[in-house]
């Protein structure tokens, strides 16, 4: 099922929550909605599910207008962040729920329901839990039951709201791989919400980065990593350092900066800002540089160095401990960014000035 979302707008009590969302999700695709808290991810998901209604805009699935359908008619599977299992039903009955409601004519016969539930229990590897109540399950097990319940109705579209948000890191990684397998086995078009980059990039075919009700960028992990479309995305991807630089013939230039490893930009000359991630910076001793090593600490694998220039700017750099040069506190170092994003100075931090969602990263890069 192809989901086409056009110019979707939604506000709650005059607070704009979605400010014009355009997004197409291809049939069978697995897409992640990635964004900070409050960026409207859940709201977008609920609108697709029919649990919220937009103020304006379109939503069609395989050419059919979904805004004319109720939630019941859409046949979607929705997995809630906190599972929302029915506490008074056993696991088996939770999973069977969607097959036992709706118009009588549409319900499968009892033996078929039982067979389908058994299949799902096996697929989700929770057969041994079938007769427990939700309160007797761990978080990861509940998550599987919630997914099983959503899959039971053979949904055309599967929507997951922070499916692993409440679980610890090890289980998250496990379930991630397993969700990918389930997705491939069922082939349903899937959208999941997360604010964990690693999760989004590892799991999804494409990642949609959202910020304050807008789509900031759509792309694969590499595209978003290497060519963030806006300062917002760059920051969200971990570029905590912003340096004022000058652009000359597509090259960035600043004191104490060796930009030889950065590619040239097709941008006009003038002042600009360079966004750097701590893990994409190398240091070389250079007495002429204004960057002084102020502080350093090791976590075993990585040395986090903090440098300061004379103007009060602070810049963190993460260096692999075994290959890093010997660092001396108080010494001056030249920065050698391995990658970075450059935006004209006019592009401030406000998202309203950031790139429109439909423009791809190449236009900025």
């Amino acid at each position: 099922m192809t989901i086409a979302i056009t110019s979707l707008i939604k506000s709650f009590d005059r607070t704009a929550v979605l400010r014009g969302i355009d997004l197409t999700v291809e049939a069978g695709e697995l897409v992640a909605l990635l964004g900070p808290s409050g960026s409207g991810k859940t709201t977008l998901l609920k609108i697709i599910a029919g649990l919220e209604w937009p103020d304006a805009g379109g939503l069609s699935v395989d050419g059919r207008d979904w805004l004319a359908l109720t939630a019941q008619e859409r046949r979607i599977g929705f997995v809630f962040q906190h599972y929302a299992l029915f506490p008074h039903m056993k696991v088996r009955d939770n999973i069977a729920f969607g097959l036992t409601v709706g118009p009588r004519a549409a319900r499968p016969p009892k033996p078929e329901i039982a067979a389908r539930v058994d299949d799902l229990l096996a697929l989700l590897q929770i057969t041994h839990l079938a007769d427990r109540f939700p309160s007797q399950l761990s978080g990861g097990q509940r998550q599987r039951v919630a997914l099983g319940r959503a899959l039971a109705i053979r949904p055309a579209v599967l929507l997951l709201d922070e499916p692993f948000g409440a679980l610890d890191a090890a289980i998250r990684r496990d379930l991630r791989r397993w969700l990918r397998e389930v997705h491939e086995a069922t082939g349903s078009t899937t959208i999941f919400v997360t604010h964990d980059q690693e999760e989004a990039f590892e799991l999804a075919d494409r990642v949609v980065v959202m910020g304050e009700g807008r789509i900031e960028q759509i792309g694969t992990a590499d595209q978003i990593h290497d060519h963030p479309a806006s300062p917002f995305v760059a920051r969200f991807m971990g570029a905590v350092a912003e340096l004022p630089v000058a652009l000359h013939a597509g090259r960035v230039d600043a004191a104490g900066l060796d930009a030889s490893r950065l590619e040239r930009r097709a941008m006009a000359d003038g002042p600009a800002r360079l966004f750097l991630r701590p893990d994409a910076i190398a240091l070389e001793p250079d007495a002429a540089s204004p960057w002084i090593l102020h502080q350093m600490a090791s976590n075993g694998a990585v040395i986090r160095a903090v440098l300061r220039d004379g103007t009060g700017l602070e810049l963190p750099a993460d260096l692999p401990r075994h290959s890093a040069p010997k660092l001396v506190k108080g010494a001056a170092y030249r920065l050698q960014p391995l990658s970075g994003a450059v935006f004209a100075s006019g592009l401030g931090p406000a998202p309203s000035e950031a790139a429109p969602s439909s423009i791809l990263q190449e236009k900025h890069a």
Partner: protein
Amino acid sequence: MQTVSHSGPVASRLMPRLLIGLAVALTLLIVVAPLFYIFARAFAEGWRVYADNLLHPVTRHAIWLTTITALIVVPVNIAFGIAAAWAVARFRFPGRSLLVTAIEIPFSISPIIAGICYLLLYGRQGLLGPWLMEHELQVMFALPGIILVTMFVTAPFVAREVLPLMQAQGSEQEQAAVTLGASGWQMFRRVTLPNIQWALLYGAVLCTARAVGEFGGVSVVSGNIRGQTNTLPLHVELLFNDLNATGAFAAASVLTLLALLALVVKSILEHRRG
């Protein structure tokens, strides 16, 4: 008794015993003794007289009237209570907190004031009186008035019990049911109701007990017409004023039994809810 067992100064061991003794004595004196007295007096002239008293047509009518009132009021209040709790728990709308307060009003207003308000509204000289007369609708001094006042007095019981549970449950389970294809009714019956069923029953029991026992408000609007608008509590008073003490106590024993029954059901429900 655990608090008593540890050794300490004599005074500090005496104090709890004194308090416990006082509590037991007061309960016996104020609550249990009158109950026993009711039954003792009801049966004072033997079984036969007791049965005759209860089977007296006027008493029977009073029992019937009270029963029919409860049978109408309780289901209406269950429906109202669920609807009100749902509206408050699930939706944001202007006047929401006002509604929460309004639901509780009957608890803080003396029932007799409710009765007078209804009288001023629906009575012959009341605001709607002429219109009602025109259409030959008798509200005051008849069953509709009794039911209205009883409904007012018992309105909060169900809503109050159900609301906290609905708020705690949140709307996600219901939303999940809807996305799985459940109709509104299926969602309510299979997801919402199981969550609130014990609280609902508990509220219904309290509501029933109050509906059966209501005196003040009903006494204003019923007009105390013997054999017509006399509910059981009013009838007890009437018999008592007639100096028919045995009859009054016989009728009172029925009310007491109903109350005790409600108490038993209530404690069973409390046990089930944990």
